[in-house]
């Protein structure tokens, strides 16, 4: 059930390949893979549990970060560095609390009240759950609990 019209592939910086238009996806045995929607995101980081599709794991893996994606790229100007832009080194680090970086502490304090909560980025035990699956019935969602 892909879309119609000319096919395009968008390389999302630090993210998946977005495929639009008319296309077929075939597996290694030349069997069709149901795209299930007109436009798909194909995993580029290698970490997805629902390959060939993207499941957002590139964010946990910090795929292709930092910097080189932006240099000299059309439309690739990074966000204004005065805004929130120096967080990239800490939000994904495990065991980051308590931070001993005073400026980070102040910033966290400032932002905690209002700018909070992407549950996906939680830092609680084992938050890097890329090995845990859970998205698909065939994944290790059920048996992973035994190890906790």
């Amino acid at each position, binding site marked *: 059930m892909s879309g119609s019209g000319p096919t395009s592939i*968008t390389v*999302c*910086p630090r*993210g*998946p390949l*977005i495929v639009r238009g008319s296309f077929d996806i075939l597996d290694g045995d030349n069997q069709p893979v149901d795209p299930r*929607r*007109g*436009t*798909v*995101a194909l995993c580029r980081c290698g970490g997805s549990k*629902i390959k060939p*599709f*993207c*499941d*957002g*794991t590139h*964010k*946990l893996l910090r795929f292709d970060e930092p910097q080189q994606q932006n240099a000299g*790229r059309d*439309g*690739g*100007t*990074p*966000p*204004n560095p005065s*805004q*929130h*832009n120096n*967080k*990239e080194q800490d*939000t*994904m680090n495990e065991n980051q609390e308590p931070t001993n970086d005073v400026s980070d502490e102040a910033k*966290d304090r400032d*932002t*905690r*009240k*209002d*700018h*909070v*909560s*992407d*549950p*996906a*980025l*939680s830092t*609680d035990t084992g*938050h890097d*759950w890329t090995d*845990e*699956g*859970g*998205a*698909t*019935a065939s994944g290790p*969602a*059920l048996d*992973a*609990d035994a190890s*906790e």
Partner: protein
Amino acid sequence: MRVLPTERGPLSSALLATLIRTDLPPDLGHLGETLQEAFGADADILFNEDLQLTLFVLYELHYSGFDSIREDWEWHPPLLALRKRIEERFEQRLKDAVGEVPHPAPNAQAVADALFEMTRAATGPSVSSFVARQATLEQAREFLIHKSIYQLKEADPHTWAIPRLTGRAKSALVEIQADEYGGGVPGRTHAELFARTMEGLGLEHDFGSYIEAIPAITLASVNAISLFGLHRRHRGATCGHLAIYEMTSSLPNAKYARGFRRLGFDSPVTDYFDEHVEADAVHEQIAGRDLAGGLIEADPRMMQDVFFGAATVILLDTLAGTWQMNAWQSGTSSLRAQLQGAS
């Protein structure tokens, strides 16, 4: 909704008593006076049960409405005037809480980067991790009940923005919404997938079935989307709101799927979450770059409103998530009334 909810204070009481009338009186001055008293009570509007329920009921007139009342209340001027006054207070509260928002370069990729960065910088309680690892069956039900007040009409508030957009942003929103509505296949809308999840846990799944149980802060999070969606001037906020919704969806939904499997459920209960892992990994890219980014690239004046809408999601998700986690960690219910009828 089939029935009007129960009052939660003087203003909602006066409104509900008015809505059952059939004569649509042109003067509803008493509502304005009651509202003034409610404002005077000085409770935080985000947690004010009376005000949030009133606003929710006024907004619902524009969605599926209420079976028991006249449909032409929807555009009755005194009710619109009342709604406007509550909205002004609500919006100001959101703006005060959100504060400064990012202002990246006005091109699509920079906007997408800044939006993704906002989700990374957020540091709230993780409801999804809790559901994945610890939630009891009863807490999982509560989680679904909170979500139901939006998810059973998922996508509808953002759809209001389609006729207010043009070009790349409009195409992006149509592309996302078409997927939200199941690509036109009956029974596959995300709202219907969510209904089947609720059904699988023995819960009612008509929209609004659990309105009595839902606290003000959860109503505030859905009222905010209606505020943005129903006002053309907030088409930017609607786009920013949707972008953050999509960007904070794939990873948490994988955790929710995991949690419900831990509790012994599988398809069709988990279909809703599995679908969102995959769909929203597509949508977040489209919403960041083509929708929000495309909108700002075409009209940089949209910048402030897009990021206001984005920041509002992070604010309200945090407050609603904190509300739930505080209750669960202290061993109490996060709902207004203990669940009844669900064994």
